[in-house]
């Protein structure tokens, strides 16, 4: 009992001592807490002062700091900038203009002298500048919203834009002749191409490349006529390449004639007449007219819906007629449709016994015939070394054929081959089979392919000027042949591109294109033997600014490279690029005349060698261009050094 009482008294004394001790500890804790509150209060005032200071004080007050002084000397900043801009405005201008290091330097040079605390200036969760690497336990934050003017620009003044309505451009037009025939064993083969050049042009240069298969030597060439608008040019051809087949007494020839004097704006006509003593005279891939001229025209906008006709040449083959027409459908084209219209004259109607035999054969992007006028290909026997299929002649007729070829079309290069009373090297006609075409006088009765399609946007928008150039491959005749070329930044917006294939003998062609070190893209492969187009469309999306590449291969039906079918150095790349003949509002100037001068100069720089015949402009006054950057949240964080 007594022991228990003593124990209780001890416990009471001990508890009192403990409570006293705990009370003192709690008081001490409160003191620490108070210290923290006081510290945060001081930091908070410091952060708020810095925000107010940055957004109030003009940058002019700090024109002696190293970074601002250097910017003034270089002309990046003007005295007006410094007088008008607050420090935060200046820092924000550089930061949001992408000059982060300048913004950081200015912040450091301005704030370092004003505080001994650690601080950091941030905007949109990015640190512009911080003078300490570590962060404190207590951080005070003050913030403000700011927006500002772009550096070097007056805050009010005049802006102007300009656009050309009429321009003069130097450009190139390439008019291809189709691979086509034929004249068998000394019989005449004739081609007439009628075409139009713009009326208001000045022709600087016109070169007619000739690619044909004819007699085996100059004496025995049987090159009868090459007339341009009635002027004989046969003897002015500069022959560049001859590849003879002596056992047939025939030659693949390539040359050119300068026809600048003979060509004229408007309608033109070129006529070719050739023969060969043996075998088969015809035109090879690579025959084309290249005209460079100056054109003055009013700028326009084209339609999204495109309808085009690709006409056949007028082909008169005295041993049947054939032609390989190539045309293109651009990448991205939708709702594509196509129609093949053939007006064939003097077609032999042949028979074997009482069976009607095939006289017309049409291919569309395939090695399987799209159309045959009869299913039988019988002959009584073969004459002339096995090349000529002997049949009965049952009469002569004109045939007008019209086909919907929509289902056969592909985006890219399309090839239509038409054979009338001939299908080499198997059957050749005896009379005057004609693929009729006279697009200038009789367009609807001519032979043509008509396509239509819709694009996502018009090929030419208002203010855009299209320039076409041709680059000759050069080098040697070889197979395969690669051509490398550079596209400049100015030529970066390519809208169309083609490779013009120049060959002597040919079989089937493969065309590859690629940019820089990217993988090769096969853009075209002949669908059938002898389906070698004069030109192949290359999607512009392949090209890029820098080095680009094209490779051509002539291959046999089995896929192996042809050993004697060369790609000639006069093959070429044709590309059309767009230049904008319009410039938007530019910098702010103190007077409207200065703003207009600037807009016109920008337009001149952009259009380069294109002549601006008629330029329009407008100007307007602007004030307080606060939207140039911001509004953005700026935060100043302050904490004690560790």
């Amino acid at each position, binding site marked *: 009992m007594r022991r228990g009482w003593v124990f209780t008294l001890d416990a009471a004394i001990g508890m009192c*001592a403990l409570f*006293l001790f705990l009370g003192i500890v709690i*008081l001490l804790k409160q003191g620490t807490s108070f210290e923290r509150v006081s510290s945060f209060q*001081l930091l908070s005032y410091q952060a708020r002062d810095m925000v*107010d200071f940055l957004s109030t004080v003009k940058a002019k*007050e700090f024109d002696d700091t190293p970074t601002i002084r250097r910017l003034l000397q270089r002309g990046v900043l003007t005295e007006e900038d410094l007088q008008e801009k607050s420090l935060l405005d200046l820092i924000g201008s550089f930061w949001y203009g992408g000059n982060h290091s300048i913004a950081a330097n200015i912040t450091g040079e301005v704030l370092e002298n*004003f505080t001994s605390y650690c601080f950091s200036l941030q905007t949109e969760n990015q640190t512009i500048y911080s003078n300490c690497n570590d962060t404190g336990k207590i951080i005070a934050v003050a913030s403000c919203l700011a927006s500002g003017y772009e550096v070097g620009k007056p805050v009010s003044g005049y802006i102007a834009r300009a656009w050309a309505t009429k321009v003069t451009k130097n450009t190139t037009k390439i008019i291809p002749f189709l691979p086509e025939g034929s004249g068998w064993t000394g019989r005449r083969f004739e081609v007439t191409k009628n075409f139009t050049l713009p009326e208001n042009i000045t022709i600087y240069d016109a070169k007619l490349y000739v690619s044909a298969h004819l007699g085996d030597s100059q004496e025995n060439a049987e090159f009868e006529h090459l007339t341009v608008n009635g002027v004989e040019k046969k003897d002015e051809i500069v022959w560049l390449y001859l590849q003879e087949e002596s056992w047939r007494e025939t030659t693949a020839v390539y040359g050119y004639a300068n026809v600048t004097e003979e060509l004229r704006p408007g309608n033109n006509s070129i006529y070719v007449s050739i023969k060969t003593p043996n075998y088969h005279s015809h035109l090879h891939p690579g025959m084309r007219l290249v005209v460079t001229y100056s054109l003055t025209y009013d700028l326009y906008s084209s339609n999204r819906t495109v309808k085009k006709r690709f006409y056949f040449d007028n082909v008169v083959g005295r041993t049947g007629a054939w032609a390989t027409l190539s045309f293109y459908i651009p990448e991205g084209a939708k709702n594509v449709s196509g129609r093949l219209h053939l007006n064939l004259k003097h077609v032999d109607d042949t028979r074997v016994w009482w069976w009607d035999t095939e006289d017309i054969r049409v291919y569309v992007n395939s090695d399987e015939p799209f159309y045959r006028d009869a299913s039988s290909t019988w002959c009584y026997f073969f004459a002339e070394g096995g090349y000529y299929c002997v049949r009965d002649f049952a009469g002569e007729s004109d045939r007008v054929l019209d086909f919907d070829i929509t289902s056969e079309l592909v985006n890219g290069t399309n090839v239509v081959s038409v054979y009338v009373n001939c299908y080499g090297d198997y059957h050749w006609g005896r009379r005057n089979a004609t693929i009729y075409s006279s697009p200038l006088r009789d367009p609807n009765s001519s032979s043509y392919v008509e396509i239509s399609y819709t694009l996502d946007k018009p090929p030419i928008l208002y203010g855009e000027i299209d320039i076409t150039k041709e680059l000759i491959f050069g080098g040697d005749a070889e197979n395969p042949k690669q051509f490398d070329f550079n596209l400049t930044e100015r030529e970066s917006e390519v809208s169309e591109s083609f490779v013009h294939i120049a060959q002597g003998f040919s079989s089937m062609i493969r065309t590859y294109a690629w940019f820089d070190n990217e993988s090769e893209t096969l853009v075209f492969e002949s669908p059938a033997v002898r389906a070698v187009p004069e030109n192949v469309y290359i999607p512009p999306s392949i090209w890029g600014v820098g080095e680009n590449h094209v490779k051509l291969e002539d291959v046999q039906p089995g896929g192996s490279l042809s050993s004697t079918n060369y790609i000639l150095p006069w093959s070429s790349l044709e590309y059309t690029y767009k230049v904008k003949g319009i410039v938007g509002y530019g910098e702010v100037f103190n007077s409207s005349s200065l703003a207009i001068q600037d807009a016109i100069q920008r337009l001149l720089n952009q259009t380069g060698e294109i002549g601006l015949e008629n330029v329009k402009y407008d100007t307007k006054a602007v004030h307080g261009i606060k939207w140039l950057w911001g509004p953005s949240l700026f935060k100043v964080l302050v904490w004690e050094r560790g």
Partner: protein
Amino acid sequence: MWVKGQAVTYDFFVASAIFLLAVTLLLTYWYRASLEIEEWRVKNFALEKLVSSSQVWFKEGYPKGWNESNVVELGLASEGEINQTKVNAMVKMGYGKVASLLSLGTWDLCFEVRDRKGKLLFLFPEVNYLGKKDVYHIERIAVWNGSPVVIKTVLSR
């Protein structure tokens, strides 16, 4: 008999020693805690006065266009900047009235204004607080005549 014998036992002396030691430690701790609490109290008061005194450079006072005869609340700013007229009025009315308006008690106040290169632009009052026992200060950044300045407010006694 048994009470005396009980009191002089070995256990009694050990317990008494422990008790006295504990009491001594407790009293020592209590003394030091009292000093610290007093120091906190002083510091609390000083910091409160320090902050409120430094704020006079950033507020307009009452009435807004006060002068030395009608001032109720001291404030030296107008429209976000230090107002030279109000600063002149503060100097004119003297330190005693300023200390009274700010309820500084036994504390002495001093304002130092320097430009960003450290050049002294303004000192009020012209006193030397070096060597004083309790000195607290705060530095604030403000704008005076369009230029940035650092205002050091010192409280001492």
